[in-house]
């Protein structure tokens, strides 16, 4: 059964009583001052579709795509509207209506969402090719002689945004099972897709932090994509397939926790039970899965994360909340508390810390202008804090803000909280060795 607004439980739409509490929290409304670009405005359009007053039109499709999906409205909403569910249903309906698609957009969709992100080995292979292209100096050379100008327009715009692929991917850094000296918990570590290709070292840091806190870490070398990209972009069937693969690979009954370190993935991962509610076999497993799924910061603080004995010198750090970690998963205090465990680290609050940076999944690709405006706003605040390090915990934000800092010529380094903690543990080990 295709997801559709008409078939959706109508009370989810009615839950919005259009009080407007979401308006000042919505980056697209604040930028444009138009009701259509606000959460309650979009919900009214969805309701009009459900009521048969509006057809799925190109303008409706545009609007659903213009939404960042940052879910700041869900944090602001006293009525508890499940906006995420509504948006995914609306996008799926737009998708199945086949609207607003050019040949190229369909082509790239097939290649990425239906191709690469369904096949982890192929994704890594392409990642390796990209690494070679960057490593052999071809990227620099192509850019210099203007060869990149031969790329199609879409790719040409994206080419400079392409992240640098990591030299080693997760399986080369993390063994399938690693055990601490004194085992207290048995956990699974999800390595992610972008995280694995670009930030495999952050996966290593995550494993180290877990090991330093008595967790036996299970990291199968080949892991499926969690399906979040698919669900957010209206590919519900593919998202279900991937969720089942994930549950098969990590039977939830075998672990104390299933750990994710990417905010965006985490928000999708912890809602498998809703995704698989109609599946007789997987529904109970998905329920158990959801109860075991933990964001790394959440898990660490839940069990009293050990403070390292030494830090990284005097360091002023500020923290940016990834949207789906803060608005989706409601994990806001734990990453800050985790940072505060590091001796010598001073945490300063970032103004508008939970305002979207414009990365928003593939938003920076689909809506470059609005994305850029948000990035500029974010960078201004980051620089204003006077911090030397910006910490954040989501690969999308990481790439986007790092690019913004580079563009602004700022010396601020971007690191993830687990990286800072892992480095502190390493400094501690070194200190103890030296004794």
């Amino acid at each position: 059964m295709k997801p559709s607004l008409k078939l959706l439980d109508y009370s989810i739409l009615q839950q919005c009583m259009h009080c407007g509490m979401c308006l000042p929290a919505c980056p697209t409304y604040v930028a444009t001052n138009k009701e259509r670009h606000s959460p309650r405005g979009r919900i009214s359009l969805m309701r009009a579709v459900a009521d048969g007053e509006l057809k799925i039109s190109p303008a409706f499709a545009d609007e659903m795509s213009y939404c960042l999906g940052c879910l700041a409205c869900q944090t602001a909403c006293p009525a508890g509207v499940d906006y995420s569910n509504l948006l995914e249903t609306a996008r799926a309906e737009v998708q199945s209506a086949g609207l607003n698609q050019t040949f190229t957009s369909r082509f790239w969709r097939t290649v990425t969402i239906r191709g690469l992100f369904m096949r982890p080995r192929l994704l890594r292979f392409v990642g390796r090719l990209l690494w070679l292209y960057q490593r052999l100096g071809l990227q620099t050379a192509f850019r210099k002689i203007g060869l990149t100008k031969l790329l199609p327009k879409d790719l040409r715009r994206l080419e400079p945004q392409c992240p640098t692929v990591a030299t080693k991917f997760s399986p080369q850094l993390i063994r399938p099972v690693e055990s601490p000296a004194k085992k207290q918990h048995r956990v699974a570590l999800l390595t992610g897709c972008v995280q694995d290709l670009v930030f495999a070292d952050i996966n290593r840091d995550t494993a180290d932090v877990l090991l330093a806190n008595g967790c036996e870490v299970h990291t199968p070398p080949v892991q499926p994509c969690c399906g979040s990209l698919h669900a957010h972009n209206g590919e519900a069937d593919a998202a279900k397939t991937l969720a089942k693969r994930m549950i098969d690979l990590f039977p939830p009954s075998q672990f104390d926790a299933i750990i994710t370190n990417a905010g965006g993935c985490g928000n999708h991962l912890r809602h498998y039970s809703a995704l698989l509610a109609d599946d007789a076999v997987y529904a109970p497993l998905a329920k158990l899965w959801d109860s075991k799924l933990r964001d790394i910061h959440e898990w660490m603080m839940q069990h009293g994360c050990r403070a390292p004995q030494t830090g990284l010198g005097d360091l002023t750090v500020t923290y940016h909340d990834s949207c789906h970690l803060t608005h989706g998963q409601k994990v806001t205090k734990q990453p800050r508390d985790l940072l505060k465990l590091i001796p010598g680290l001073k945490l300063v609050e970032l103004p508008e810390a939970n305002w979207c940076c414009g990365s928003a999944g593939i938003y920076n690709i689909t809506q470059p202008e609005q994305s850029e405006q948000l990035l500029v706003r974010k960078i201004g605040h980051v620089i204003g804090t006077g911090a030397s390090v910006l910490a954040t915990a989501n690969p999308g934000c990481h790439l986007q803000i790092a690019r913004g800092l580079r563009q602004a010529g700022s010396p601020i380094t971007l690191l993830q909280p687990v990286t800072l903690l892992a480095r502190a543990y390493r400094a501690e080990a070194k200190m103890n060795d030296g004794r």
Partner: protein
Amino acid sequence: MGDAHVLTSPEDTIPYGFDGTAALKGPVGVVVLPGSTAEVSAVVQLAYELNITIVTRGSGTGLSGGSVPSEGCLVLCLTRLDKILSVDAANLTVRAQCGAITAAIDAAANKHGLFYPPDPGSMKISTIGGNVAENSGGLRGLKYGVTRDYVMGLEVVLPDGRIAHFGNACVKDVAGYSMKDLFIGSEGTLGIITEVLLKVVPRPAARRTMLASYDRMEDAAQTVSDIIAAKIIPCTLEFLDRMTIGCVEDYAKIGLPRDCEALLLMETDGHPAAVAEEAEQMLALARARGARDVRVARDDAEALQLASARRSAFSALARVRPTTILEDVTVPRDKLAEMVSFVAEVAKKHKLLVGTFGHMGDGNLHPTFLTDERNTEEMARVHEALEDIVTKTLALGGTITGEHGVGLAKKAWLRRQVGENSHDLMREIKRAWDPRNLLNPGKIFD
């Protein structure tokens, strides 16, 4: 004005078909977003010539359907006129365009050590023009009054497009009729407010926020009477009933006690010495009336958290059922306890779910029916319950609306409250002022 500010496609206009009122919506053909008073005037003049009706709106947070569009109307949305023009610390005034956000006005005053007290629940979203048009109240009504008490001057576009100015920065001004007072609370039926001159006051140097929980609603109400009898006028005395406490706590998660029958949120502000003394007295009075737990907010952050939680009450109640019908009846302060228990009886009688919260200090309560607009049988019972509540309110010498306005939601009862002669006079004024009935037709009266 440019294409960007004239909206005609359904995807653009459908989101302007409602305001913050449950179960009300209207058809929208065109939305115009002017960027200056001159543009407002031009649009109104054109509409006058073409005999087109106009429904004006700001952020659309109204709670009586005042800005819900009517058939064939032009929606005039004034959110682009959002500038705060000046803060005059010598004369204690702020001048702002009608689309300026209420909270932004107070923030601008704050920079000069000044204070704009009216704080409707939606103050972070609502526009000052909408506040004036509805004469909005808020949590500080008891001590500071309502929007009307702060309006010194208005710029208004009249039904034929002419621009008129009323009032000025003088504290004393008895030149002719007080025309500005006619526009305050006129709900967009007499003219379009484009600019406001507001009174501000020195910002209180100290503030203390307290929370008391009770096993009986009557004890909370009695505490309020005791406080007033002790010659204390706190700036805020808000209450929440058990249902509302649960919903607010589900949203805000700030540790409100779910197992009590009433919560009283109290705030006193002013000179630090007076605040300290009054706070002590209020705490003692609450304890004496059997409050089972009384506490003071640790710091400003917690005080803000408590006030914000209270402001979310109405929306938070929407968690329970699909449709949330909010009432706004107000009774003289000493009748409030009686009214609160009457609401509970009525809900029981009609087998309805109700959450009640409101401003205990000024007698303004918000019984909120949690229902489903698609269940016609239940909605019929809601209407019977509302009828009972209105009858009782009027019997107690109260009003059908304390701060939300008549709009569409309350117009059936206006004549009954104000009487035939008064109602007729209101209609005659409207007819004289706007003979073609172009401005917000069908609101307040048919």
